[in-house]
């Protein structure tokens, strides 16, 4: 339901590019689309308004009229303003005035506090710190067990006391940390609504006792318009110092990031990007800006692709392409990599140019399974040299894969045509307009960069 955004931007920006000068109407027409994109990304209505006013002021200023390509200038301004709003550079954790450094983790229920606390502990441990986790969530059943389990996994001790009140528990934990010479204390608190007076009072009290160097608000990237109220509520009672944005491994556009950032003025310090303990990263404003504007698909795709293929595999495949020695086995390899990355239709929709090249295809996942079954029912030698597959072998393969011989025929025929296509590719003729395969004409065997 979001795929139209990139298209919509594409259309508008082309229109602007063709013009020499921008009128106020032009700027307004772009900003209307930007506004929709922001709202669909869950940026708060009021925040979007202020943001657009800023962009408009800049776009109508001298900057644009002096520029040679006004359209591009507007795009740049929107993106720049987004990046500036999100925080231009990564902000490190506040240092402790005197050790231990104390980090208080707060947020709504289910935003990912406990997981983030453990991830942060693991990250700091990797940086040679000695963290202590404190289980101060005494509300949710088994929250302490969850943190203890995670603590065991990452080899970080967890301080808990199922009977004490949070304030006393935190006081005792910090004392313990000093005794055991921990230089970081990470306090996981119970999830609470910002309007729950009793629990917010408790949190304020905990904060007073802990006197943290860093008070982080954990915000779910999927949060809607409510993000401003949550952020403001926690800011008022706990004097936040930073934000952690979680569940960015999903496909939420994450407009909550802008809302929370704009309301609190506090930097987004980390983002949670997966379920593994190591999935906590420093915040990248540019990536977030692209994502919110709906231009992040390519980035996501790159991340997915990088998970599935490593550099070496990519090189190997490129080599096979160059000398046109792609066999059914190689095909099967590729096939499995792709399936790991998600539904094929989704991948196609994310690939710029692929939709056009393939003519709006819809792939039935069941058919994918059939193709795989057919190839798997071939012997290794048949896969290397499909020409040896005779009529009786086809029948055997069809029986083995639960398909019909004519299906096997189709697969074989298409494979041989695909091989032909790749041969022409390796001769430098790209089937996809605008896309050429580098190194194909064997002119530049230049070493590619390493990641």
């Amino acid at each position, binding site marked *: 339901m979001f795929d139209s955004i990139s298209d919509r931007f594409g259309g508008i920006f082309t229109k602007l590019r063709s013009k020499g000068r921008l009128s106020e109407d032009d700027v307004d027409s772009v900003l209307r689309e930007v506004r929709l994109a922001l709202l669909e990304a869950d940026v708060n209505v009021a925040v979007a308004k*202020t943001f657009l006013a800023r962009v408009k002021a800049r776009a109508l200023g001298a900057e644009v009229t002096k520029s040679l390509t006004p359209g591009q200038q507007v795009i740049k301004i929107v993106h720049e303003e987004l990046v500036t709003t999100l925080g231009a550079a990564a902000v490190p954790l506040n240092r402790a005035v005197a050790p231990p450094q104390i980090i208080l983790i707060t947020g709504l229920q289910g935003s990912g506090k406990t997981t983030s606390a453990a991830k942060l502990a693991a990250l700091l441990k990797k940086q040679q710190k000695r963290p202590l986790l404190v289980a101060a969530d005494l509300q949710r059943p088994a929250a302490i*067990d969850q943190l203890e389990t995670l603590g065991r996994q990452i080899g970080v001790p967890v301080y808990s006391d199922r009977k004490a009140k949070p304030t006393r528990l935190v006081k005792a934990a910090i004392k313990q940390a000093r005794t055991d010479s921990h230089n970081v204390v990470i306090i996981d608190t119970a999830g609470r609504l910002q309007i729950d007076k009793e629990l917010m009072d408790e949190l304020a009290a905990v904060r007073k006792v802990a006197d943290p160097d860093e008070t982080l608000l954990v915000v779910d990237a999927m*949060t809607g318009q409510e993000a401003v109220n949550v952020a*403001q509520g926690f800011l008022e009672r706990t004097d936040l110092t930073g934000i952690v944005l979680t569940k960015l491994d999903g496909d939420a556009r994450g407009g909550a990031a802008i809302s929370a950032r704009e309301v609190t003025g506090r930097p987004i310090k980390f983002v949670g990007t997966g379920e593994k303990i190591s999935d906590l990263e*420093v915040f990248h404003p540019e990536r977030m800006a692209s994502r919110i504007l709906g231009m992040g698909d390519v980035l996501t795709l790159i991340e997915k692709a990088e998970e599935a*293929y490593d550099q070496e595999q990519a090189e190997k495949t490129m080599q096979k392409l160059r000398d046109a020695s792609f066999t059914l086995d190689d095909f099967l390899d590729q096939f499995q990599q792709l399936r790991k990355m998600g*539904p094929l239709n989704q991948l196609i929709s994310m690939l710029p140019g692929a939709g056009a090249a393939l003519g709006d295809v819809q792939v039935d996942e069941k058919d*994918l399974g059939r*193709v795989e079954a057919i190839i798997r029912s071939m012997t290794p030698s048949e896969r290397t040299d499909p020409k040896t597959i005779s009529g009786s072998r086809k029948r055997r393969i069809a029986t083995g894969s639960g398909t019909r011989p004519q299906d096997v025929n189709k697969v074989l025929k298409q494979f041989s045509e695909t091989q032909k296509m790749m041969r022409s590719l390796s001769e430098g003729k790209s089937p996809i307009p605008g896309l050429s395969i*580098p190194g194909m004409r064997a002119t530049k065997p230049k070493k590619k960069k390493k990641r």
Partner: protein
Amino acid sequence: MNLGTIIPIVVVVALLLVLVVWLVRRPSDAGTLDGVVTPRQPEVSEAGLRERLSKSRRGLAERLTGLFARDHFDQELWDDLQDALIAADVGVRASEQVVEAVRQARPETPQGARGAVQDQLEALFAGKERELTLRRSPSTILVVGVNGTGKTTSIAKLAGMLQGEGKSVVLAAADTFRAAADEQLKTWAQRVGVKIVTGRSGADPASVAFEAYELAKTDGLDVVIVDTAGRLQTKANLMEELTKIARVLRREAGELDEVLLVLDGTTGQNALGQAKAFTDAVGVTGVVLTKLDGTAKGGIAVAVENELDIPVKFIGIGEGVNDLIRFEPKEFVDALLGE
């Protein structure tokens, strides 16, 4: 079926991906944790923002009251109405449709428009089955959703509710992924007083669900409620695991009586994608909308019902066992519009 075309498609896609990996330079890390970077001093909001926010915090109710107190219609009124709906997470598309329908109804006064909005929203929720349909014996309820929406808590509340109606319930702790998820459900099971089947951490969730179903059959229990691990709808392998759980249960039970999707009431437009993906994977029959005890309006329910035709069956309004109630469209719309 067109098996042949799959080969070139897969090859082209694979090629493009390999190219992407091969060519793209990822932006270098913008800074390290302890690295020396210059933090940008946040310029906290211009004067206008605070006021605007407090306006948005006043809630839809007051905004609408102010809106409809005007004495004439103009584009600004319609825009403001749409903004008010968007501010409740109704979403751009659904709010456009509502506003358009209200315009079509040609109310004579702005006050009349308010009634038209109400009618429009109520019409949207009308005529859907919102009761649980538990026909089989034992009945099975599969509970699914992304991480942190409140599945486990909702299950406990649901179990309490069903038990209050005289049904015997067994819970299946099929979230074998999240640390201590089974402990959490166990604690709830004790509080509510229902049976529970757990597996070891990392055990096959489908087998836990299966065991619970078997237990219900032998002990003659009425309802099996299966708790599953939270999963983002974009994770293909985890969604595959979920369809396996559903498949195993369907094989044993014939059909699942209910597949409930738990949506967080504070979630924005992503909830639509969630509803869509979970419906594709396991056939969602109803929605549980949680965390409505805050200031979140849960307007996303409008979009979900409007675009996907899945009924909201329950809402979660607090942390207590009794804080799960049946969804009443009229009350929900009243709360959304503030009355």
